[in-house]
């Protein structure tokens, strides 16, 4: 998101005062629509509406629907009708004359601001002569950040100026407002970079201006319009207008957040007013509130600032809780919001504890300014708000050298304090972090994703439980190996648990069968080299639930069919694969006790490695699965000869009672696991499938109202096999392994052949990226994998 920084000093402003013109001399020309090209006009209008929505200030639903219909109508009458609607959202009408003279007039919206909040308005720009200037429109009240003295940029030596010695209090008192044009472009003017809007050349276009008020009450501010010719020689012309605003007061509202057992805890809140505007405004959030989230995370006793009014408060706490929407009034008598959370399932009652092993505190959607990502104090707040027990914040190439400071080879569960309190203070955040009794139930550990490194072409490694985060002999990312096996060997030598991230990337084929035998293109950063490394014994898991299920599971099934035992674990890759929240994809590990501190994390990760887990979206749960009385991660079921085995499972899943527009939009999105994609028609049922060696062996339907139900299958096992359950794409168990006559699993010659062919494909696509000096060792490792798969192929009894 580009944000306008209006860096024009007061002296520079005075240089252009001579061109100031009163806006009242130029009446609006909304009816002159006949010369406006229809398609570009509506394309521009819809972009402006999208921007408003993205900033948490959408136009009313009825207006959005009307404009959508008018867009389809696409004629002059539709344009005129649209102009009338948009006028209600327009704060200023800017007119650019044929000579580049700008004029400012009032728009038709109520000029309401809110104390300590941002409001978004449309700005209408009329440019009948198709000029290609850039325009700058902003409040001319200075801000504390603009209080630099003239000339300072041209002096190298540190020197105090007269202005520096002055008491700034009276100046700051006047700095009650600031504004920003959304989606602007940097332009060099007056020797500095200003963020302006390049005119597109169409007669009428709309942009979004965001206006922040520090104060409450009636306030007045000057706004300036600067027209900056493209040539860059002419300094341009300006116009000014005084705008009066009514600034609604806000209040400190305290949240009471109570868990099902009566303890205070952290939860997620989406706060919207009756116009669907989101609070606090997303546009200017800094950590711990994320600009790319609608929600904020607050604990019991913490606060949020809201103006008087009516709000819808949506509270939730991850997929194990029910979402609750409450309409509240905020005024002098009502400054407290009470939320009593309600769970539909608590897997910990059956010994299952959740974790997300792939979250990032920097990179992708995170900002780089004012800090390179966020701190553990922010990440732990988000984890607690999603009721996530374990979180692995993975350091990776973006902000690697900054975020490395948070790696300690130990777990942490810090207070959810504000990072960089001076920035929070500057942003007038009133939040005072307050501990809750449940804080210690979330554990954060920093580890590494090998992404953006020389070996990343071969698949991204997730390295958990590291003692050291720098590969031996390296100082820079560029020094690391250019293929993965040496990194896995180093990681495992220090006791790490290691595997491949977003395992479906590069593994997508045309077939939607599972398993299928098409050879993937290996053109991404998923499972790829895992197919080789597993034959060397260095792959503990593939990590998925954040991509296409077929692409993620197919290679896993084939490798299991070859007798390799690795886990499929759940991850979010937050905020890259999705920025929705942490814990979108997750693993549940079975433990005797709730994991706390280093020992708890050790036990949880060890459980992953040993296969005491199921993975998914947290909306389906395999609470107890036994094959011939044996759970996954326990000893194999050992049969002397082929026989029928009994599979008994306690399973719970929860769908919304009926499909809704929101649930339907989930179903049409191809990526990310979600139980809505498993819904059978419009029913409230999902299929539970029994797998033997990756092939569906039986199926039943489960009523997904959240109630745990027992299901039972009987299935013949003819040879050594793996047996698992799935609700696709919502949850998948780890296999229970069944041996017959003490033989290893050699379930499918076709699976072994698929893996063998994939080794060649990975070499074909990935070896060119390996350093020449490392390629001989890699070639040897790949040859080993070829030999292993050929041997397994020969050992398989069936095709």
């Amino acid at each position, binding site marked *: 998101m580009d944000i306008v920084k209006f860096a024009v000093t007061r002296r520079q402003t005075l240089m252009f005062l001579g061109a100031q013109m009163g806006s009242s001399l130029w009446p609006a020309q909304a009816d002159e629509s006949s010369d406006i090209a229809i*398609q*570009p006009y509506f394309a521009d209008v819809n972009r402006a509406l999208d921007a408003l929505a993205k900033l948490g200030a959408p136009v009313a639903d009825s207006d959005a629907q009307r404009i959508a219909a008018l867009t389809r109508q696409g004629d002059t009458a539709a344009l005129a009708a649209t102009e009338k609607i948009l006028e209600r959202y327009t704060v200023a009408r800017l007119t650019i004359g044929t000579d580049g003279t700008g004029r400012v007039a009032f728009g038709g919206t109520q000029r309401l601001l809110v104390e300590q909040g941002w409001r978004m308005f449309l700005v209408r720009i009329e440019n009948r002569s198709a000029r290609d200037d850039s325009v700058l429109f902003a409040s001319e009240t200075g801000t504390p950040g603009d209080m630099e003295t003239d000339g300072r940029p041209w002096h190298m030596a540190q020197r105090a100026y007269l202005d520096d010695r002055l008491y700034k209090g009276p100046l700051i008192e006047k700095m009650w407002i600031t504004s920003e044009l959304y989606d602007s472009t940097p332009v060099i003017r007056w020797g500095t970079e200003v963020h302006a809007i390049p005119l597109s050349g169409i007669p009428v276009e709309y942009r979004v201006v965001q206006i922040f008020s520090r104060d409450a009450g009636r306030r007045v501010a000057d706004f300036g319009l600067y027209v900056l010719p493209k040539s860059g020689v002419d300094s341009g012309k300006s116009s000014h207008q005084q705008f009066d605003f009514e600034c609604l007061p806000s209040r400190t509202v305290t949240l009471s957040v109570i868990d099902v057992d009566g303890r205070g805890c952290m939860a997620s809140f989406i706060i919207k007013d009756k116009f669907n505007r989101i609070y606090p405004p997303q546009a200017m959030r800094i950590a711990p509130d994320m600009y790319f989230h609608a929600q904020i995370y607050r604990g019991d006793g913490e606060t949020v600032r809201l103006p008087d009014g009516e709000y819808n408060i949506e509270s939730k706490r991850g997929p194990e809780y029910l979402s609750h929407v409450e309409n509240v009034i905020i005024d002098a008598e009502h400054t407290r919001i009470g939320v009593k959370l309600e769970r539909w399932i608590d897997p910990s009652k059956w010994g299952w504890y959740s974790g997300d092993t792939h979250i990032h505190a920097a990179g992708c959607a995170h900002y780089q300014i004012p800090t390179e990502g966020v701190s553990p104090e922010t990440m732990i707040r988000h984890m607690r708000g999603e009721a996530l027990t374990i979180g692995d914040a993975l350091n990776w190439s973006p902000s690697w050298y900054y975020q490395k400071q948070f790696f300690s080879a130990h777990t942490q569960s810090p207070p959810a304090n504000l990072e960089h309190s001076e920035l929070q203070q500057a942003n007038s955040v009133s939040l005072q972090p307050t501990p809750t009794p449940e804080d210690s139930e979330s554990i954060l550990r920093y580890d590494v994703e090998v992404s953006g490194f020389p070996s990343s072409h071969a698949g991204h490694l997730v390295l958990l439980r590291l003692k050291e985060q720098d590969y031996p002999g390296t100082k820079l990312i560029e020094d690391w190996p250019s293929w993965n096996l040496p990194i896995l060997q180093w990681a495992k030598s220090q006791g790490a648990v290691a595997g491949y991230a977003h395992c479906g990337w590069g593994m997508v084929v045309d077939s939607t069968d599972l398993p299928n035998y098409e050879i993937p*293109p290996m053109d*991404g*950063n998923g499972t790829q080299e895992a197919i080789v490394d597993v034959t060397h014994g260095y792959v503990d898991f593939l990590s998925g639930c954040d*991509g296409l299920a077929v692409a993620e599971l197919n290679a896993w099934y084939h490798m299991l069919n070859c007798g390799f035992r690795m886990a499929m674990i759940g991850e979010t890759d937050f905020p890259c694969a999705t920025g929705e929240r942490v814990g979108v994809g997750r693993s549940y590990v079975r433990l005797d006790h709730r994991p706390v501190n280093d020992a708890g994390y050790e036990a949880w990760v060890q459980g992953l490695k040993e296969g005491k887990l199921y993975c998914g979206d947290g909306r389906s749960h395999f609470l107890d699965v036994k094959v011939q009385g044996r759970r996954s991660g326990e000893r194999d079921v050992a049969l002397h000869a082929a026989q029928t085995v009994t599979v008994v499972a306690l399973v719970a899943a929860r769908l919304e009672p009926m499909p809704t527009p929101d649930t339907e939009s989930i179903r049409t999105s191809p990526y990310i696991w979600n139980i809505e994609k498993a819904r059978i028609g419009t029913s409230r049922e999902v299929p539970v499938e029994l797998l033997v060696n990756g092939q569906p062996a039986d199926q039943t339907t489960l009523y997904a109202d959240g109630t745990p139900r027992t299901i039972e299958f009987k299935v013949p096992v003819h040879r050594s096999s793996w047996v698992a359950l799935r609700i696709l794409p919502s949850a998948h168990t780890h296999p229970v392994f069944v041996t017959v006559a003490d033989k290893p699993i050699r379930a499918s010659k076709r699976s072994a052949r698929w893996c063998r062919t994939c080794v060649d494909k990975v070499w074909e696509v990935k070896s060119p990226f390996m350093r020449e000096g490392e390629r001989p060792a890699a070639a040897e490792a790949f040859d080993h994998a070829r030999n292993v798969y050929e041997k397994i192929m020969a050992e398989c009894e069936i095709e």
Partner: protein
Amino acid sequence: MRRQIFSIAILALSPAWSGASDHKQEVDVTAPIRITINPESRVSVALVGPLPPVARCGMATQFQVSIVNQGFLTAPLEANPTGDAPAGVTVFIQPDPLKGVAHETRKLPIKLTKPGLTDLTITFKAHNEIPDLGGRDRIHLLIQCHI
């Protein structure tokens, strides 16, 4: 034969990993459209230069696209008109896979058939990869063709 293909590929691509820190030197600064593929294969795009003169209606205008590939991605790049795409607009991008090297340049031919201003939104993504978050995967072009 396969060995020959490998040899050619190795010659062409060997510097790829080492070029990660040299993107600035290699980027085609004359291309008006710049695509950045981050290490997680997210595609973002920006207009960074003046657009080429437009062609006659019915003829394609070639837009140069420079690609900074930090993800070693070798999937095909896709470009599609988004939203209510104007009638008679054709957007095409080379379908062959990216080379995975730190920088390469592609052509993006756009053909208009109707005269008059056309506002076109084009979204880019890598084949079978998750789109970018936050709408950074699209550009807006205001173009017109001549009769």
